[in-house]
């Protein structure tokens, strides 16, 4: 359904600090808007984002309606070993999405 865009360097030297950028498509409906008829549009947001590096959690975010649609996050980590990054988004109405990216550390 939704799609995610991940930006992780393919290669890094051990000890390098690398930037990770993650973007996913999601409406992030705040729950505060109304239709022209006056009905509240129910909240539909991503509430949690997690990034794991070879299984270890390195970054986690709790998101609120004040995060823009198609949430974008950028953060950093130290490249320690080759392996993979696993990304997970969890939200309202059972929304769940995962993505992964590989890195080679020399």
């Amino acid at each position: 359904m939704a799609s995610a865009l991940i930006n992780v360097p393919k290669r890094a030297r051990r000890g390098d600090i690398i930037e990770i950028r993650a973007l996913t498509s999601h409406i992030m409906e705040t729950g505060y808007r109304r239709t022209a008829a006056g009905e509240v549009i129910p909240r539909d947001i991503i509430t949690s984002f997690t990034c794991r590096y070879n299984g270890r959690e390195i970054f986690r975010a709790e998101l609120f309606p004040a995060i823009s649609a198609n949430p974008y996050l950028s953060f950093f980590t130290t490249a320690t070993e080759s392996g993979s990054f696993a990304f997970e988004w969890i939200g309202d109405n059972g929304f769940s999405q995962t993505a992964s990216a590989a890195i080679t550390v020399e």
Partner: protein
Amino acid sequence: MPCNRQSTRRTFLKTAGSAAVAGTVHRVMLQPLHATPATLNSAIRNLVGEAPLRTGRIKLDIPPLVENGNTVPMTVSVTSPMTADDYVRSIHVFNEKNPQPYIGNFHLGPAAGRAQVSTRIRLADSQKVVAIAQMSDGSFWSASVDVVVTLAACTEEL
């Protein structure tokens, strides 16, 4: 409700006898539904507790003048060596006038290497945005920025 001030006002004006009264009632109706400086402070107190909140070490980058409140780029960075003994545990961002005071909580650790997070946020009005960092030693540091928003987030109807 706070997100459609215009329609509330419009609806009200239709039924109101006097425009002068409308202004007052309008404000009274909306206030409890907005985050206010008081709710901002209580949200911050919930996080910090009785610990002292110091300014410095954290930097909040938001453009001071924003054209579109629906997507405002924001970067928070904290001065920290990010070692196993001295690192940033979490970064919390709050606002003053959105429907709720929370924007996002970001949990980091020593593995981050650099304590910096960027995202895009919504601002429903010109207001103050506050970022607070919790360090591994339990201390809290804060920074705030006043942002002027010309087009507020979520005022449109569907």
